[in-house]
């Protein structure tokens, strides 16, 4: 019953979302899959929606990635996210890697518009911050670097 309800809501989303012009650039998510984004959330709601399906984390941290992640953070993220737990425009990053799956974090960074439209957790953050997180034109590689920097910020070695 619950599944049906979700399916109906999913249908509602698709029928009401404005049709994008056919030539608009699509974010390359789920290339060969026939599943809808909403089905993905049902499968594993904690991983978010997007190209990132699984992430391997290494220990100790990859220092090259940490360095690049910090540089990207300073250029594109620091205006809204602080490194402690204080919310400014967006939430502070302290403990984000403990509260979210790495896949969810990377999908949020690389596929933010779809996440804000369809992912329940991302939508909760939007209601809290009242500011759509901007698409900062990040590749999956950039997001992986940021993730490594976040892990360091959360005390991993």
């Amino acid at each position, binding site marked *: 019953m619950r599944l049906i309800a979700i399916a109906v809501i999913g249908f509602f989303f698709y029928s009401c979302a*404005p*049709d994008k*012009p056919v*030539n608009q650039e699509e974010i390359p998510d789920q290339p060969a899959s026939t599943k809808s984004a909403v089905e993905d959330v049902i499968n594993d709601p904690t991983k978010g929606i997007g190209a990132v399906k699984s992430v391997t984390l290494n220990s100790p941290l990859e220092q090259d990635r940490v360095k690049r992640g910090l540089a990207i953070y*300073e*250029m*594109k993220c*620091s*205006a*809204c996210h602080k490194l402690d737990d204080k919310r*400014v*425009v967006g939430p502070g990053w302290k403990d984000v890697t403990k509260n979210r799956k790495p896949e969810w974090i990377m999908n949020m960074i690389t596929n933010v518009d779809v996440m804000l439209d369809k992912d329940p957790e991302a939508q909760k953050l939007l209601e809290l911050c*009242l*500011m*759509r997180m*901007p*698409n*900062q*034109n*990040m590749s999956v590689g950039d997001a992986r670097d940021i993730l490594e920097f976040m892990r360091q910020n959360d005390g991993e070695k």
Partner: protein
Amino acid sequence: MNKLTKSIYTLAIAAALMSLYNCKPQGPKEALVGNAAAKAYVAPGQYDEFYNIVSGGFNGQMAVYGIPSGRLLKILPVFSVFPENGYGYSEETKPMLNTSHGFVPWDDLHHIALSTTKGVHDGRWAFGNGNNTPRVARVDLSNFRTMEILEIPNSGGNHSSPFITENSEYLVAGTRFSVPMGENKDVPINSYKENFKGSISFIKINPESGHMNIEFQLRTPGFNYDLSRAGKGPSHGWFFFSTYNTEQAHTLLEVNASQNDKDFIMAVNWKKAEEYLAAGKGKKVKSRYAHNLYDESTHSATSTMLDEVTVLDVTELKDIVYFIPCPKSPHGCDVDPSGEYIVGSGKLAAMMPVFSFTKLQKAIADKDYEGDFEGIPVVRYEAALHGEVQKPGLGPLHTEFDDKGNAYTSMFVSSEIVKWNVKTLEVLDRVPTYYSIGHLSVPGGPTAKPYGKYVIAYNKITKDRYLPTGPELAQSAQIYDISGDKMQLILDFPTVGEPHYAEALPASLIKDKSLKIYKLEENKHPYAALGEGKAKVERKGNEVHVYMTAIRSHLTPDNIEGVRVGDDVYFHVTNLEQDWDVPHGFAIRGATNAEILIMPGETQTLKWKPLVPGVVPFYCTDFCSALHQEMSGYVRVSPAGSSTPLKFSTGAED
């Protein structure tokens, strides 16, 4: 045909002619029929089939419309300052309008030339001319911005410009007014015949960068050079210019320049000119002119002053230039898609001559001349003539072409477009325009591959076409469907400025390569703050440089103290957004220049000079988010000489 049918025909033609000349077109009910609205309708959210790049005339801009909807997509400043986005006001764009006369914030942009490869549009650049203070500009069609402006020295007004060769080898810039060219320019005006000369610049275009330079100038007899077209196909290597005032009048040209039965089409063999240039026949002439280039990595323009051009004198160097007699002050001088036919449109003539390139070549080979003008051969009119279009209409100005061998000529005086066959010279159809058409445009019309679907009329008189708005009215343009035998009016649309020439090209050539953002990683602006942590304020003497960042929805720093009356404060604002269509703006109270708009990843600078002590607000002018109204800050201004320390912050605790 029996006698009865003949007389019916005669009557019908007489009636048609009477209706043509008796009545001024009365309005839509007369011309609008059937499914016109559906043909111009582009549903909400759908795209137009063509981009129409339209000169703005006296507004010094280009405008971009979608065709067939007539929707205005963009106003693009070229030769005129544009307070709306800071063009010509920001520190980065001011050098674009530099000239040998200093900063010139306005011009009169008449003609568009789109870059071509093998005679067809390639969607890379749009060029425009500055008619008043002679200049040409290059606009990039991936970002729709003016990227380069080159001043034209030794020119009295750049009208026959910027027409382009089939592989974008050259643009031309022909002087509208002849002026004294010698060492001593302080001469009596009535010494026109001895001292005044014409000048045609050939501007080479770098095929990779698009950068322009004056490769050579032709020094030509003193009269007026009006319009131009490059040859193509068989006539590639030649350029054709219409001329008027071969009487060489210097006063009351309305009468004195309309005395001769025929003026000239000037045919220029530019390949020959290149040979003379390579052989070192050019003379270096001191000439001061500005070359302004915009660099998208530093987001800044630079202006370089140049001091020399190479001149080829066509009265001394034979075989570069030939004159073809052309009746009555020709205006348009248009080459058909095959490159064989050259249409001269005498503004005051009752017929239009069409010249044949093949016959012109034969006449030159046979020296079939009727005389010379200042030593330049004048080809015998009939020897170069393909034929005349008889009684096409009154006041022919410009001709565009379709893909079926037809030509479309604008008739200013009789206010109509006349369709005729280029080979047979037979008039096929005519439609009224509202009112007094100037230029006209068929998508791809001046190229080797026209898309004969629409013709757009750019009219000079508007009168009653729209709701009245006082003495000054929007200009009126009209779109006609020309896919069938009969031209059909499908849409009226108002335009900004006063369009002269325009070109249209298929949207598919450019829409997918349109730039969306500037990458922050590639921003090399010396005052960029690439990240909020890099925001700062520095004092250098009485200059204060604010390295500011903007992101939805705050400016950093947003509290600045230690600025003093008399300082020059530079706000260098970097937009940290990296998403399409998220510009931010910046304005500060009392700024005597303008605002700036900053595109994602870009840095732009607004200079501000505080005059009185106090606290001055600044804010973002481009509605960016739900909290846009919060995107603001304060500068504290202390009296000159005060010791208020320089401080800056965002979100600092009290």
